[in-house]
């Protein structure tokens, strides 16, 4: 059975012309990611892994090349359409500042679903389910400031999954966490990957993540190396 290619990055390049010298962050990268993958993009700082991740997620426009998400070319999409696409099809987990500080854990997840236009009953059920899956039952009414770093990241994961996206992009999600908490978070994400077939793409230089990844793509100076 041919696995579904959910992310098709074709000849991607990104050059920044901000300073006197142009910076070639990503150079002619080809990448196929299939559904159900648990993949890590690794490399030292400046290797371009974050830039590549951003382009895959439609946050940054490539200077050259195309990105197809489940067959749809998002490269030339207009901004508003792109926002809408991200809302419905891509989940994000960042290193920090994921959550809206003034909303509770429950409300944070609920909010995304509201944006998508889900109905009240549907939202309520899913929020409960998601919080359970990340092991935060009982913390529904806590604001981010009342949660630990690890707990915040778990809510972030729950929120990323709320929209039933095609895949989740995680940019250095464990950077601010201690070993135990990081391990915990990765356990949850692995579980989701195994049980629900959710695709996870990490950008990281955390060895704990690299260890757990099923596939590792190494980047050096903007190019993929073997």
């Amino acid at each position, binding site marked *: 059975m041919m696995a579904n290619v959910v992310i098709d990055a074709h000849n991607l390049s990104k050059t920044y012309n901000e300073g006197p010298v142009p910076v070639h962050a990503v150079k002619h990268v080809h990448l196929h990611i299939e559904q159900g993958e648990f993949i890590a993009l690794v490399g030292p700082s400046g290797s371009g892994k974050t830039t590549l991740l951003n382009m895959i997620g439609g*946050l940054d426009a490539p200077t050259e090349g195309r990105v197809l998400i489940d067959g749809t070319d998002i490269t030339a999409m207009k901004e508003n359409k792109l*926002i809408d696409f*991200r*809302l*419905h099809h891509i989940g994000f987990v960042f290193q*920090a500042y994921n959550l*809206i*500080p*003034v*909303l509770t854990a429950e409300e944070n997840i609920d909010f995304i679903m509201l944006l998508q236009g889900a109905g009240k009953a549907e939202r309520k059920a899913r929020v409960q389910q998601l919080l359970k899956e990340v092991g935060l039952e009982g913390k529904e009414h806590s604001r981010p400031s009342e949660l630990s770093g690890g707990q915040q990241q778990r809510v972030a994961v729950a929120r990323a999954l709320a929209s039933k996206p095609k895949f989740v992009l995680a940019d250095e999600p464990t950077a601010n966490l201690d070993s135990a908490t990081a391990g915990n978070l990765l356990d949850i994400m692995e579980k989701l990957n195994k049980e629900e077939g959710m695709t996870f793409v990490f950008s990281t230089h955390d060895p704990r993540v690299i260890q757990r990844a099923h596939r590792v793509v190494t980047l050096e100076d903007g190019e993929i190396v073997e």
Partner: protein
Amino acid sequence: MRMMITIAWRNIWRNRVRSLVLILSIVMGIWAGAFIMSFYWGMSKQQVRDTIEQNISHLQMHHPAFKENYDVQYTLSSTSEIADKLDAQPQLKAWSGRVMTMAMAASANQSTGVTLYGIIPEQEDALTGLAGKVTEGNYFSGKKNEVLIGSKLAEQLKIDVRKKVICTFQDRDGEIVSVALRVCGIYQTRNARLEEGMLFMQQSDLAALLKTGDAVHEMAVLLNDETQVDTVVHALQTAFPAASVESWKELSPELRMMTESFNQYMFIIIGIILLALLFGIINTMLMAILERTRELGVLMAVGLTKRKVFLMIMLETMYIALIGGPVGLLLSWLTVQWTHHVGIDLSMYSKGLEEYGYASMVYPELGMASYGIILLMVVLAAFIASLFPAARALKLKPVEAIRKI
């Protein structure tokens, strides 16, 4: 949408002190601004009321040429018909017919220019309450050649009750007439400027001296309902085309202007206050956004449209204004209610005020419409203030914002 409202509201309170300082500044500014307007309005209203009741009445009628030089030959023709018509008016409260001439009033030591009014005592009293203003001596008793003078004039001429004052003037034919009048009483009003120049004597006495017969120079009318002034003026003018009928607005353009320009004045004062507040609002809101750069970046990455972000910032700004504005107006309303009841004493400035006819107690008041206008101005100002920070928030690019993480 409802979520946006909730989020915006909660965002304000993230930095409680900063928000409260801003809200407090709005409260103080609006409170002060509205109170000043109520002070000014209270003064104006009273000034109008006083001037009408004590001086010019609601309307006056003259021979068209009379007001130019106060020449005694220009009496109101058809005086008696006018009197009849006035008596028939249902809205009428009181009227008084006056014979007038400019004159020299002289006492043993002094002489000065005055205006001599020949009145029918009961009529004039019904119109301006003249009898009640007599502080020394008595109102007219009916004896010949009695005169009522103002206290300021009595001071100036150094005369008292029962003393004589010699008045010199020209009669209808141009002959110089001199008459000795006995002071029967001294009156006092709040308007020194008027007092100085007005002497009252009995109409029959003066008419005889001027040889003006039954006609009068001036008819002053007070109505029951001041909203009817224009209608009555029009009716009288139509009935007596030969006469000049003027309402208080025409007789005293200053008064009319004072009431009509109130709204303009309010726009300017409140406008300046809001302009000053604008600096603070924009500054605070800009800070509130710029410190949330990353958070806003994540929101936009995750699926919040630019429109929603704009809306959120705008709502936050409007909340601040919608708390500060109404609280300020409420405080102002309370202050107005209290000071209206108690009155504000300006006796420190009383001499100057009296000279120009202002009372020295002020009773602030402000119409509901004015509060409404101020509130509207605050909302509008908040809206305008919110545009700049909200637009600034939009300029944030999610990528750049996130790169900062």
